[in-house]
C-alpha cells in the first residue's frame, strides 16, 4: 500500500530550491521543549506575490517566520533568501513583528521608530540628517500617520501602532516583507490602509508574506496561501490550495462546515 502525506516532508537538498525564490525554507523543525511546533516544513515563496500563512492558533505560523528569519533557533532546517544564505541577504528583508511584542511605554516617538528602519543606512555613528527625516516622513505618509510623527508611541491606538511598524519596514526599502498578523486587533481604517500599502508593494514587484487569521478576507487580499498545522498542509495559489479539503485538514474539525461553505460563496 502506498502511503501519501498531505505535503512532501523530509529533508530535501537545498540545491533543488528554485534559486531565485525570495524565501525558501527546507526541512524546518522548531520545538519549544520536546514538542515540535513546526515539523519538517518546506516553503517556497513566490516572487512578486502576496502569500498568506494560514493555520489555527498554535499551529506554528509565527514560529515558522521567526525560524526563517533566525529570530528563533531551529532544531533542523535552513532558509535561503533570494538564493543566498540568510546572513548575506538580510538587508533585503523587512520584518513587521506582532504589535504586542514590544513595550509601548518605551521612551521613543513615532518618527524615531520609523528611523530605526534606516539603521543600516545610518550605521553606528552617522548623524540623522534632513534626507533621513524626509524618508521617514514619506514612509509615515504612506501609512497615513504623518500627523503623529512627534507623538510618544504609547499614545497611539492599536491600529496606529501597527501602521507605525509597517512604516518602519517600508523605510528599509526591502524586497521581501514578512508580517506577523498585521491585521490582528486593528480598526477597519487601519486594515484598509495596511492592505493598500501591501498591494502597492506588490505592484512595485515586491514580495509580501503575512501570517493571517481572517479566512474571509484571504481571497480578496492574497494571491497565494500556505496552510500549516505544525506540518505543512498545502501551498499554492488561492484557487488551487485554499480549498475546503485543505482547510479541513488544517483546522481538523474546528471549522464548522457552514463556515467553509461561506468561504466558498465568497469565492464565487
Amino acid at each position, binding site marked *: 500500500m502506498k502511503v501519501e502525506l498531505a505535503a512532501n516532508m523530509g529533508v530535501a537538498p537545498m540545491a533543488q530550491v528554485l534559486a531565485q525564490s525570495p524565501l525558501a525554507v527546507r526541512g524546518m523543525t522548531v520545538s519549544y521543549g520536546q514538542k515540535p511546533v513546526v515539523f519538517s516544513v518546506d516553503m517556497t515563496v513566490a516572487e512578486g506575490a502576496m502569500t498568506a500563512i494560514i493555520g489555527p492558533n498554535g499551529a506554528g505560523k509565527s514560529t515558522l517566520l521567526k525560524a526563517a528569519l533566525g529570530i528563533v533557533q531551529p532544531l533542523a532546517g535552513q532558509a535561503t533568501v533570494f538564493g543566498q544564505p540568510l546572513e548575506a541577504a538580510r538587508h533585503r528583508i523587512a520584518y513587521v*513583528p506582532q504589535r504586542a511584542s514590544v513595550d509601548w511605554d518605551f*521612551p*521613543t516617538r513615532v518618527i524615531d521608530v520609523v528611523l530605526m528602519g534606516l539603521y543600516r543606512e545610518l550605521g553606528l555613528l552617522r548623524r540623522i540628517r534632513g534626507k533621513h527625516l524626509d524618508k521617514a516622513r514619506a514612509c509615515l505618509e504612506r501609512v497615513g500617520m504623518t500627523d503623529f510623527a512627534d507623538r510618544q508611541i504609547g499614545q497611539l491606538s492599536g491600529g496606529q501602532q501597527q501602521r507605525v511598524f509597517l512604516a518602519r519596514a517600508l523605510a528599509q526599502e526591502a524586497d521581501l516583507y514578512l508580517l506577523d498578523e498585521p491585521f490582528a486587533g486593528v480598526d477597519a481604517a487601519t486594515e484598509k490602509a495596511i492592505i493598500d500599502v501591501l498591494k502597492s508593494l506588490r505592484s512595485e514587484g515586491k514580495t509580501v508574506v503575512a501570517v493571517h487569521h481572517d479566512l474571509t478576507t484571504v481571497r480578496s487580499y492574497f494571491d497565494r496561501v500556505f496552510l500549516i498545522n505544525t506540518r505543512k498542509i498545502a501551498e499554492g495559489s488561492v484557487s488551487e490550495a485554499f480549498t475546503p479539503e485543505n482547510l479541513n485538514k488544517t483546522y481538523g474539525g474546528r471549522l464548522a462546515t457552514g463556515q467553509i461553505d461561506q468561504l466558498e460563496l465568497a469565492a464565487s
Partner: protein
Amino acid sequence: MFWDALTLQLGYNASLVTVGATLLGISAGVTGTFLYLRKRALVSDAISHATLPGVGIAFIVMVALGGDGRALPGLLLGAAVSSWIGLLCVSWLTRLTRLSEDAAIGAVLSVFFGFGIVLLTIIQTMGAGRAAGLESFLLGATAGMLFNDALVIAAGGTLTLLAVLILRRPMTLLAFDPEYAATRGINVARMDLAIMALAMAVTVIGLKIVGLILIVAMLIIPPVTARFWTDRTDQMALISGLCGGLAAWIGASMSAVAPAMPTGPIIVLVSFALFALSLMLAPNRGVLAAYLRHRRFQRRVHMRQGLLALAQSQPIYEAYTMRLLKQAKLALPDGVPTDAGRARAAKALRDEKRWELVRADQAFESAAALYDGLRDIETVLTADQINEIDQRIGGPKEVTP
C-alpha cells in the same frame, strides 16, 4: 564652605574626589539608561556583588608576587574578572536551567558576596601585605584617594561613555524590539553582553568611590529620574548622565565639607532627592501633574453631568456639581439655571443627542471611537457632518454655547 567644595577650592584631595565622582556619575547615568531600558537593572546588582572575590584574590596574588597588594589597577582587574564570571553565571543559569532571571541573580549575588567576605577574613588573618582598608570596597572610601586612582576612574569613565556613544543605536533597537533587532543582523546575545560589560566597567571603576553595595543606585536612579522628564531615548540618556553627574558632584562636595561623612551613601541620597523631586514635579509623568489632570477631568465630568441635569430639569444631588455650576454662574444657589446656564445646558443636551446618533451610525465608526461623553463634537466631526446629524434631530439649527 560648601560653595568652596562645589567650586573645587577645598584642597587637592577633595577636588580629586569631586571630579572623579562626577565623571563616574555621568558615565553611570548614561550607561544605566540602556540597562534600565533593557529591563536588566537588577543584573547590575549581581555584577557588583560578584566583584568582591576578585578583589580578594587579586590582593592575595599581588602579595604573593611581592607587592603590598594595594595597587588599584590590579584590584580593579581582579574585580572585573570575577564580576564577569558572575555575569556569565547569571546568563548560563537562565539559559540552561528553568531558573528565572531574578532567582539566578539572587543566587549569584549572595554566593559571590559570601565567598568574597570569606576571602577578606582570610586576608585579615594572613597578616601579609597592607590589608587594612580592603573592606572599604564595600561602601567606598575616598579619604586616601590618589591622583593615579582618579586617573583610572577618569579614563575608565571616558572609555565607557565612548562605547555607549558607538553602541547607542543597536542598544536602543535591542531594548525596544529584540526580535526586530535580530532581523537587522544584531547579535542579541552578544549585544546584551555588551550592555552588561559596560555596566560592569562602571561598577569596577566606581568601587573606590561608592563601593560595590551602592553602585547599583548610581546605575538605576538617574535613568528612572530622567524617564520622568522625556519621551525620547537620546534625551533620556543625556538627562540621566546629567542627573548622575550632578548628584555625584553635590554629594561629593557635601561629604568633603562635613568630616566623616561617607561619600558614596551621600551621593546616593542626593540622587534620590533628584528622583523624588522629579517624581513629584515632572510635567507629564509626575505625581502632581497626574493628580491635577485627574482633578481637571473630574471637574469636566461633573460640569457636563450638571448641565445635562439642568437641561432635563432634573435635580442635582452632588454638592460638588452644584458648587461648580454656581461658580461658573450657570445656576443660582436654589438650582435654577441662569440664562447662560440654560444656553450651555441646551448645547450639552444637543451634543449628547448628536453623539447618540454618531454612535449608532456605522458611517461614523472612527469618530464614535473617540466618544468619551465630554469632548466637544466640533473637534471630531466637520461642520457638514454635524449639519447632517442635526437634520436628523430636527429642531433649532443654531445654538450658541
